[in-house]
């Protein structure tokens, strides 16, 4: 929902904190999830994730989530799917070139990132989206990434 996602951006800092907790919590659950099997968890988690993130961010379930680097404003809502916005077409009132009644997703991203602790991440170049991940759970993927990293650093 448009209004909710604008509200989220205004509270990007709080959502950043919630997201960090969520990540830590899920990483702690890793042994349990591994036992159940990530394959088996994929579908129910993806459905739940779609519900939550759909409501909050108008998430498109690209599976390649970059919210933390985009001020909690989902860049897949940009009509040009720009992962490294904003484009040069932003209107003088800050609205989108393609959808004049919508605020540019990247105006929000810039605003949101300003109050986030990891706001500097917006300056990193995002690589092309991996379309094979479409519809999959970004949370589960993230957890596995974090776990792999932890294991590597402890070696």
């Amino acid at each position, binding site marked *: 929902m448009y209004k909710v996602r604008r509200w989220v951006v205004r509270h990007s800092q709080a959502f950043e904190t919630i997201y960090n907790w969520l990540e830590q919590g899920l990483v702690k659950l890793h042994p349990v999830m591994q036992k159940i099997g990530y394959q088996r968890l994929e579908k129910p988690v993806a459905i739940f994730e779609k519900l939550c993130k759909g409501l909050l961010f108008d998430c498109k379930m690209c599976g390649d989530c970059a919210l933390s680097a985009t001020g909690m404003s989902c860049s897949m809502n940009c009509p040009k799917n720009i992962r490294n916005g904003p484009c040069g077409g*932003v209107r003088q009132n800050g609205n989108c070139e393609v959808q004049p009644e919508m605020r540019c997703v990247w105006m929000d991203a810039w605003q949101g990132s300003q109050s986030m602790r990891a706001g500097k991440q*917006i300056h990193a170049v995002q690589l092309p989206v991996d379309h094979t991940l479409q519809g999959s759970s970004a949370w589960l993927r993230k957890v596995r990434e974090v776990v792999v990293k932890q294991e590597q650093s402890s070696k």
Partner: protein
Amino acid sequence: MIFHDEPTPGEMLPILEGHTSAGRLERVLRAGLFAVTSELSPPDSADPQEVYDRAQIFDGFVDGMNATDGSGANCHMSSVGMCALLTRIGYAPIMQISCRDRNRIAIQGDVLGGAAMGVTNMLCLTGDGVQAGDHPQAKAVFDLDCMSLLETIRGMRDKGEFLSGRRISTPPKVFLGAASNPFAPPHDFRPYRLAKKIAAGAQFIQTNYCFDVPRFKEFMARSRDLGLLEKVFILPGVGPMASAKTATWIRNNVPGIHIPDTVITRLAGAKDQKREGQKLCVELIQQLSEIEGVSGIHVMAYRQEEAVADIIKCSGVLQGRTPWYPGRDQQRLQESYKT
């Protein structure tokens, strides 16, 4: 300046030390000369002569011509097609690549094809949305964006790999460009976005129409503070407006173009608005060329292409230099025989 190893069409110049391409644009910029590029609008036709006629107008005044890729989301002859024709006779086009119409498979293929034909400059754009053009029913692709496109081509050139990691036996040796619009909000983010483009591989930048000089100066100052000016060649965009009415229309209908009221009032108050528009363009070029970090100028004179030569001449930015064009050296030779 004359490069004595001027091209035989179809044959590449040697790549100089510290250069990434064999192109003349890169040579001119790296030699510290003031470069001029212009927009070459593609014909709605399958006749090659129309492309040559359009290119010839700029002979002796530009170092590179942008072969646009469906700009404004309107359908015309393709950028690759134009480049094929232009390189055949030795021109040095800047091949625009927009992400709107093709996915990563098609684009990477075009990059190799373009480079094989002798294209040495490529400009990476996200592209206008399909709603802006004459085929709003079309499916927009946007598989990549300008930034990931830059990264992709840089990877092809420097690592010799496709995005997939597969090897390329002869990498495309190209000079990479990108666009920037210092006049669109959020203004404070624009210099950072420029930094991002440089990090992704941009070596030269062409900007949107630049009518608001103070704002541009501000943008350049911020970019200097970020240490960007040594890393990239910046060519601000300029162009003559035919009348106050055209300027107002463009301001209201073309995404991302900012024209201050003062410009419109000045045009409206002139007797000959077209001439005034050209005069203003000359003044802008002169003002912009004075700004620290400006390496050249990009002229977009849609439907006033024939005025470009005069505008460049009046501005004096070439300082007596005649950029190469097919036939330039033969012409000089003949002239020297006569005298």
